[in-house]
Each structure stands twice: as C-alpha cells, then as structure tokens.
C-alpha cells in the first residue's frame, strides 16, 4: 500500500492538517497522533485538507469521530475541506455531511471559523 503522511500548519488560532496518500486501518494511528497532538496543545479549531488524500477507509473515517466530541466541548470544531469527489462520496454515503461541515476549499473553512469567532466576540 502507498504511504500516508500528515502535516500541520497554524494560521492564527486555526490549525490545518494536510493529509496525503492512503488513510486506512494501518495509517489511521498517525492521524490520531496528529489530532491528539493538537488537542493536547489546546488547539480546537481544526481544518482538515483532503486535497492530496487518495483513499480513505472506514477506519480513517473513525479517526474524526474519535475526537469531534472533545473538540466541540471546547468550543472548537473539525471542518473538512478540499475533498476529491471520490473521497467526498465516501463521506457522503455515511452521512458525514449531516455531522460535519464540509467545504470545497480550505479558505472557506478557515473563513467560516473566523466568522464564528467574530460573531462570538
């Protein structure tokens, strides 16, 4: 199987996780580590960029479920962005659009975070 990697970049208070390659049962723990790393450093505004993700399995989807509760409890969110049609289809089938905000681009997701922040303050 092809490799999987994650990278994180912070834009202000918002962190973006970039996913690359194949996210399945074997690589899911890497993403888990990345997200729990962000949560440990109290970063709860998370955007996930799926641009370079080739494949996601059910175990990969499970990773987001594992953290969403904790993040939302802390007034944060995990917003998904820039999915290919194929990846979106998998999320869509499972009803993820009913549970997560999914945006066409990373910017949209970040702007959405900013809007809510402005509204709050």
């Amino acid at each position: 199987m092809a490799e999987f990697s994650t990278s994180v970049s912070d834009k202000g208070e918002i962190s973006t996780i970039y996913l690359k390659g194949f996210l399945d049962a074997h690589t899911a723990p890497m993403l888990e580590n990345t997200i729990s790393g962000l949560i440990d450093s109290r970063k709860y505004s998370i955007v996930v960029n799926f641009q370079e993700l080739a494949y996601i399995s059910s175990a990969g989807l499970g990773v987001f479920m594992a953290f969403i509760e904790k993040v939302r409890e802390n007034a944060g969110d995990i917003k998904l962005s820039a999915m290919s049609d194929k990846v979106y289809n998998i999320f869509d089938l499972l009803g993820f659009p009913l549970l997560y905000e999914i945006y066409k681009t990373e910017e949209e997701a970040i702007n959405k975070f900013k809007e809510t922040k402005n509204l709050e303050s």
Partner: protein
Amino acid sequence: MNFKIADLTKNIKFQSFIGFAIILFFFKLIFGSNESIFYRILNELFVIMTASFFIMYMFDVIRAKKINPLSLIMNIGILNAVIFFLITFSDSIMKWVFGNIQQRLIKPDLVISIVSYLYGFLFISTVSYIFFTFKELFFLKQKKNVSTYFNTMIIFFLAASFASVLNPYPELNYIKTTFIIISVMLIIVNSIRISWIAFLSKKEKVSLLILSVVILILFCVNIANSSDTHLHGQVLQSFSTSLDQFMNLMMIYGIIYFGILFFTTLFHIPTAEAYDRKTQEISSLQYFSKLITQVLDFKELTETVTEIAIKVCNSHAAWIIWIDNGETRPLAKKNIGIVDANLISGYILEKMKSGPDAKTTLLSLDKFEGKVKLSEKFNSLAVSPIKTHNEVKGYLAAAKRNDFIFDDDDKDAIDTFSDYASIAIENSRLLEESIEKERLEKELDVAREIQRKILPSKNPQLERIKISTVFIPAFEVGGDYYDFFELSEEKFGFVIADVSGKGISAAFIMAELKGIFESLSKTIERPKEILVKANEILHRTLDRKSFVSAAYGVIDLKEETLTISRAGHCPVILIRDKEVQNIRPSGIGLGLNFTDHFINTLEEVKIDLKENDLIVLYTDGITEAKNIKLDDFGNLEFEKILLENSDKHVDEISNKVIKDVSLFSQNISQHDDITLVIFRWKQNLNLDGENKWQNSAPQFQTKVK
C-alpha cells in the same frame, strides 16, 4: 532399585568391616602374645580383611561425590600430617605413660592390648584412606581403561605386606624383598599417570607445586620415623606386620608420586597461562552456542550477551546501549548502575561513528567531563557496535575500573563476540516478529470463523423472490454482514451491513449486529424504526471510532412493495426496464450520532415492485476493489455489468460481477470483504399456467430459519 542394591552392599561391607574389627579385637586380647606362625598368619588375615572392607566401604561412600584433584591432594596432606603427629606423640607420650613399653609388648596385659589395638586401628583407617585417595587420583581423567595396572599393583602390595609374616625367618626375606621391588616398580609406572595436571588453571598449578613439596617432605619424615628403631614401628609391628609393611609401601608410593608430581607441575607452569587462554577460548565458544539457544527471549538474550562480554574481555562491567526508534536506553546492565550507564552511554554515542563505518573502539574516560559524577570509577571502555544489515542497532559496551585498561586481545575478543551477539539479537527480533504474525493470523482465522457462522448458510427458497448471494471474505476480515428474515407469510426482511475496522473486533460487532437485527425484526416492522433502535443499542457497546453502515428493507409480498431505510450504507440498486436507479434515502451510519439528529435525518422509502425488478445490495468491497494501479472498480462499471446482464438468472448475474471484479483486481490482494445480494421479483405467478394452483398455497416453499 539400583540405588537400593548399592545401599544394601554398602551395608554389608560396613557390617563385615565392623565384624572383622571385633574379631580382630578379641583375637588380639586372647592370642595377642602367641608367637606361633599359625596365629601370626591368622592375625594378618584379620587385619587385611578389616582394612579391605574399610576401603571398599569408603569407595561406596565417597564415589558419589564430585572429585577435585586439589582437594584429594589436600586430603593426603592432612592425613600425612595426622600420621606425623601420631608417630611423634607415640614416641614421647607412650614412653611416659607406659614406661618400658618394649617389654610389655612381648607379654601384653589388657591395657597394652587395647592401646595397641586402638593405635593399630587408627593406622588402618588413615593408611586405608591414603590408599583410597591415591586410587582416586590414579583414575582421574584417564581416557583408557587402566584398572589392570592398578589392580596388579594392589596384588603386589598385598603380597608384599602379607610376606612380612615371614619376618622371623631371615632366610625367606628374599620373598618379601622381591614383592617390594616389583611393587615399587609398579608404583613408578603408575605414578606417571598424572595427566590431570594439564586441566588445572595456573593458580591451581602454583598451589599444587607448593602442596606437593610440603607433602613430599611429610612422606619422607614419616617413612624415616616408622623404622623399627622407633617406638611407633615396634607398636605397629606387634599389632600387624603387614599393616606396617603396607604403610611403608604407601609412604614410598607417596614419595614417588609427589616427587613426580612436583617436577611435572614445575614443567607445566610456564605453559599454564597459554593453556588458560585456550580453555577460555573454548568456553567462549560454548557461550556463543548458548546465545543461539536463547533467541526465544530477547531480554534473556541481552542479559547473556553482557554476561559473556564481561568474561571475554575481562571487564568489570558491561551493558548494551539499545537504539529504538531514535531513543537510546541501556539494556541488561551488569555491575553498573543506571545513572552511570546513562552517563557513559551519552559519552559513547557522542564519540562513536554511526552507520556502516562503526567498528569496535577502545575509549578512555579521562577526558569525559561527567566522570566526576560517576559513582564507580570506570576508566576505560571497549565499545562494539551491534549491527544488522549494516545498520547500527546499538552498542555493546564494556568498562574497566581505575587503572585497568583494555588490550588488543580484549578488543579482538569483544569485536568477535559482538558479531555473534548481533546475529543472535537479529534472529531473536525476527523470531518475535514471526511469532506475532502467526498470532495475528490465528486471530484472523477465528474472526473468519465467527463471520462464517454468522452469515446465513443458505438462501431462503421463495416462490416470488429469487435470491443470489456472494460473499468473499478478505484475509483481514472486513466485517460485512447480511441476513434474511422471513417475518410472516407476507413479509420478507433483509439487512446488509459493513462494520468499520477489521479483524476480530469487527467480527465481534458483526455478531452483535446479528443479535440486534434478529430480535428487532421480530417485533418491529418498519425499517426506519429498526435502524433507530439498532443505533440506540449500539451506543452502549461501540467505541467512538467504530461505526456500522447498514441498510434494512422489507418486501411486502401482498402489497408488492419494497420499503427501505439506509444508515450510511451503499445505495440499493434497482434495475427496472433496462434502467439503473440508485435508491438512496438519507441516513447517517449507525454509531456516528446518537441524538435526535440521527432519527430526523433517517428517511424511509417505499417502492412499488414490478415484474422482473432486480434489487441489488452490496458493500463497498465491490465498488472499491482496486487494480494494480490502485484505481477503483467503481460504481459505473458495477452498474454497467448489472445492466448488461439484467435479463439473466440471478446467479449468473452475481457470477458475472464477481468474475469481472476478480479480473480487475488480479495480482492484488483483496483488502475488504465483498458482499453481493441480488433479488429478482416475480410479480404475478398467475400468469404462469403451471404455477396457478400455488396461488392459494403459502408463498414460501420452505421456511428457512
């Protein structure tokens, strides 16, 4: 059993010994002064028998113990010292106590008889014991059977001793002398058999040299003191001439044996060190082979490695610096504390080259800044890399204290040894991996077995619904589940589900799903309600990362409708009049949300069925099947095949799909379960003349539980 027999004979020997000792005592008491040759011979026979049984008994008692030549030599030394004191004391004390003992010996009274008996008896034991010890020394490390030499010698010893009864007849003295000369010659021949010296270490050889000189002198003094002119000689002779003679022979044996021993040891000493090194090399080889047998346990193996490292390079402490995922930690520390090991390890990692160039290096701690912090004054180090496939996995470190340094021999030794250790460690790791792999495979076997038992063993045979199913498990068990429920004569329910994750955990959730749907389908009719309930129940058991995609449907045979609800599962495909429809009511996967949101978003659709409708249920194992370029098989391709073959028998359709999917995924392992369920709806049996009569009959041909 053997043990008992040995015990028994041991007892008999002991009893015989005591018996003869008692006989001898009374014989002495009664006939002590009788000088006739007959009584003398009888006396000697009793003494010889007593001594023989004593020696035989001793063999049995001591044989079982492991014999160390040096302790045997020590025994002889101690006994000689005892004899020396006995002789010296007898000369002065007896004279003082008994006055003119020579006179009294000729016509002994009771006191003299008892004293003489005890004295003689003391010598029987000590001399016998010396003889026994010589015998053990003789047979030590002998490679061929040499008992003939020794037995011949014993015979001549006995002959010479016994011939001493002829002492009063000087003209017959030549008999005794001949026996003695032959005995001495045999002693010389037998004393050369001292190959056991070679097996001693240098230290042992030095102490043997000193001991042999001392004992040699003792033997000489004792033989000089036991001549007839001394009181001791007279007492012993009056007790038994053969004992006296035997003792003299033993003293001669001692002088010859220890004389030869002394010179041999002397000549062996210069080569002793070389011999020591050889034996050490041999024992290192033994250690290496020990490593091979310990690859089953990594911890035990590392412990052995450091233990041997200390021995091969004569160091005071040793440990392994293990590099694991970039982190280093000391393993299997021997004679060094964790703090010291950590400090020195840091210094070593700084100084050692990494990569394929790493080789065994001697380091000094003189320039080490942290040296003052060490609790023990380690001064010099020998460090050897533990390499596998040119990759440094760690270092084997050995340390010496204070002024001790490692020489080139030590360096070579640890270098060679670390090569062996590297191989053993690598083997151990590989073995651990393969055991883990086997364990996983066993676990997956169990998971597949669970899955096989959960899925329906055969399809229901229905008049109006033709069913074809295909299920192909993935090696890792994907967690696909499907089932059929014959709810009533009019209603037929079905479910298809895919558990997230793989392996045994997925199999367990499958088992739970079967229980949930099996029971819910009996009480609840509406698919939406069933999925809502199922979600509620799963809330209690599913962990946050797991979820289940499922679709539940009911075909009403009377209404001729299909009602379906979908919780995150692949759409249900309906093929009607050469057209593909994806039935995809909204719904979130089970276990993803446990609020009203789940209920509110879950839709239920109802479709009127038409003749020859094809209803296809599947899991993503089909659409996401990969080819070698990692492309998906895809929904479009799937739909195309279904459409092209929609007129055929359901089994033919499913076969065609599976055939195409496997062709597509050639040369790539199937990574998810594949499930395909196809229903064909036969609407109006009335149109079929043959089946007309069945209209009033029950709809189900057979009830499959």
